[in-house]
C-alpha cells in the first residue's frame, strides 16, 4: 500500500492505462502543457507526447463529439470537462450520440470513451462551478456513471472505466483531489457496478457516494459514541447500480437514508429510495429517507454555500430520528 492523494491516484491510473494501451489518449482544456486545472494530467504530455495528450480550444461540445468518433475507430479516448457544469454543453454528444450508438447501430459499434469531470460545492465557486449533476446521466440508458470517494477507488475505477467498452461518465469531486489514502502498490482494478461497504453496521444504512461518503463516515463515528452502529455503503458506481449490496444491507439494518450532495428534487436518492421500498418494503421499519442538497443553485458566499449541502450534523440527526 502506498499513501497518495486522490489526484495522484487518478494520474497513476491514466499513466498505467496509457502505458498499457497505445489507443488510450487524452483530450481537454489545458491538460497538456499545464497538467490540468486540478493537476491530474501533470507530466503525461512529457511522457506520452502531444499526439496522446491533447490541449483543446474551448469547444466542449465538439471535442466530446470527437471522443465519440475516436472511440468508434477503436481508440479509448479520455476527455476532461473541467467542471460538470460545463458538461451541459456536451449533453447532445453524450446523450444522443455516445449513449445511443451501440443501440442504434444494432450492436455493431461500441463507444469506449471516458468523460472525466468534476463537481460539487465547497470552494466559493458559485452557481456555475459547483453543481452535482450526476442524476442527468443516471437517467440516460447507455451510460455508466462512476463517482469515487477514495484514492484507491479513484485509481481502480478509472482503470476499469478506461477498459470498459461503454461510455463512462466519471465524476470526481473538487474537495477530494487533495485527500489522501492508501492505494495498492500493485495494479488493482475496482470493478464497475460494485458498491463497497465502507463501514459495516447493524442499526441503519447510509447509502452514499463521492464526497458525501466522508461525511457519512464522520457521522457514523459520532453516532458510534452514542451506541448507534451505522453501515455506510459507498455506491462508487451509480450505473450499473449494485442493488444486491444495497438490498442486502437494508434487509439487515431495516432502515436506510440515501445521502447525496445533489439537489434532492429529482436526485438519484429518490430513485434508490423508491427501488429499495419496492423491493424490500416488508423488511423495512420505515421509509427510506433522503438527506440531500437544497433545491437551489449554489451561492458564492461560503456561509450560505455551506447551508446548501448536507452536513455531518444533519446526517447524524437524520439517523437519530429514525433508530
Amino acid at each position, binding site marked *: 500500500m502506498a499513501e497518495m492523494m486522490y489526484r495522484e491516484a487518478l494520474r497513476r491510473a491514466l499513466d498505467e492505462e496509457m502505458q498499457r494501451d497505445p489507443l488510450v489518449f487524452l483530450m481537454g482544456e489545458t491538460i497538456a502543457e499545464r497538467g490540468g486545472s486540478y493537476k491530474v494530467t501533470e507530466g503525461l504530455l512529457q511522457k506520452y507526447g502531444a499526439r496522446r495528450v491533447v490541449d483543446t480550444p474551448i469547444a466542449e461540445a465538439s471535442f466530446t463529439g470527437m471522443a465519440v468518433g475516436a472511440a*468508434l475507430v477503436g481508440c479509448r479516448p479520455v476527455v476532461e470537462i473541467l467542471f460538470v457544469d460545463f458538461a451541459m454543453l456536451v449533453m447532445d454528444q453524450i446523450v444522443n450520440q455516445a449513449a445511443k450508438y451501440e443501440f442504434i447501430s444494432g450492436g455493431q459499434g461500441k463507444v469506449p470513451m471516458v468523460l472525466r469531470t468534476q463537481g460539487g460545492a465547497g470552494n466559493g465557486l458559485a452557481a456555475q462551478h459547483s453543481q452535482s449533476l450526476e442524476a442527468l446521466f443516471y437517467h440516460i440508458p447507455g451510460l455508466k456513471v462512476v463517482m469515487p470517494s477514495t484514492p484507491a477507488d479513484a485509481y481502480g475505477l478509472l482503470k476499469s472505466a478506461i477498459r470498459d467498452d461503454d461510455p463512462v461518465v466519471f465524476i470526481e469531486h473538487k474537495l477530494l483531489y487533495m485527500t489522501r489514502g492508501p492505494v495498492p502498490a500493485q495494479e488493482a482494478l475496482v470493478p464497475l457496478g460494485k458498491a463497497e461497504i465502507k463501514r459495516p453496521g447493524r442499526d441503519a444504512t447510509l447509502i452514499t457516494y463521492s464526497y458525501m461518503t466522508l461525511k457519512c463516515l464522520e457521522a457514523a463515528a459520532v453516532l458510534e459514541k452514542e451506541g448507534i452502529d451505522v453501515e455506510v455503503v459507498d455506491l462508487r458506481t451509480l450505473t450499473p447500480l449494485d442493488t444486491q449490496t444495497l438490498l442486502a444491507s437494508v434487509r439487515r439494518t431495516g432502515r436506510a437514508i440515501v445521502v447525496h450532495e445533489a439537489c434532492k428534487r429529482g436526485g438519484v436518492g429518490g430513485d434508490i429510495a423508491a427501488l429499495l421500498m419496492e423491493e424490500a418494503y416488508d423488511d423495512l421499519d420505515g421509509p427510506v429517507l433522503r438527506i440531500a442538497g437544497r433545491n437551489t443553485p449554489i451561492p458564492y458566499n461560503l456561509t450560505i454555500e455551506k447551508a446548501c449541502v448536507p452536513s455531518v450534523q444533519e446526517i447524524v440527526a437524520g439517523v437519530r430520528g429514525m433508530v
Partner: protein
Amino acid sequence: MANMVAEEEKATIPEAVALEIYRNIYATRRFELRCIELYRQGRIRGYLHPYLGEEAVAAGACAALRPQDYIVSTHRGHGHCISKGADLRLMMAEITGKATGYCRGRGGSMHISSKQLNHLGANGIVGGGIPIAAGAAMGIKVRQGDQVVVAFFSDGASNNGVFAESLNMAGIYRLPVIFMLENNHYAVSTPIECATGCCDLAGRGPAYGVPGICVDGNDAVAVYRATLRAAERARRGEGPSLIEANTFRHGGHHVNDPGLYMDPKLLQEWKARDPVAIMQRIVADPVKIQAIEGRVEAELEAAVDFAAESPEPDVAAFLAEIPD
C-alpha cells in the same frame, strides 16, 4: 457559386471509376423512389428524407475513397450508404425495420450504419456527425493509420456551432477529414439566404484556417476530383479540407413534404442538370449504362423481397437484451 470548379468536368477519369459512380447514382435514385413507394404503403415508418437530386455528391465523394476510409452521414443518408458500398438488402431491411437490417431494425433510415463498410452512421441530430467525423480522424492519427474520413452534412448544419468548432479543431490538429458540405440550399423550408448573412459557405473554411473550395455537386466527377485532392492532402498529413458541393433537392424535405416553398424556377433549372443524366453523358456507352441499370433493378427487387420476407425483431429477445 463564383469559384465553383468547372461546371461539368468532362476530362477523362478511369472508366471503372465512372461506371462505379454511375452505378451508385443510379442505384440511389432508384432506391429512393422505391422507398417512397414503400412509405406510401406503410412499410417504412418514421422519417424518410430522400436524397433525390443530390446523388452525385455521395457517389463522387465515395468513389475517391478506399474501403478502409470512413464516412459519417446525415438524416438524408441513403446515398452515402449506397455509395460506400452497402448491400441494398441489408439497407432495405433496416429501413423497413427488420431484424435482418444493418442495425437489426433499431436504427431505421435516420441511423443506418455499417461497421463492415466503415460507415460510422447517419444521424438524427443535424450537425451531430460533424465532430464525430473529426474525432474519427483524430483516432486515425492516434492509431497512426492512413485512412481519411468524409463528413457529409448540409447547409443547415453549417450554421450549427459544432461545424465551426470542428473545422477549427481539425485545422489545428491537421486531421485527415474532409468536410463535405452538401449545399442543397434548404434546411427543411428555410432557404440558405435566410439562414446566414453570408452564403459563401466554402469561405468559412479559411476563417478557421481550413482551405475551402466550391464544386458543382450535380457533377459527380467534379466532386470526385475535389475529394481525391482533399484525400491526398489529408494523407500527406496536411490536414482537413472543406468542400462545398452545390446541389438541390428534387422534392420536399421528407417524403411527406410537398416542398411547395421551393422556388419552381430554380427547381426546374436544377432538375435540368439531373446528376443521373450528367453522369450518363460522361459514361456515354449505352450498353454499359444499360447493364448497370439492369443489375441495379435486379438488386433492388431482391432487396425489397429480402426485406419483405425478413422477420420483425423479436420483442422478448429485445427486452431481454436491455441491460440492468
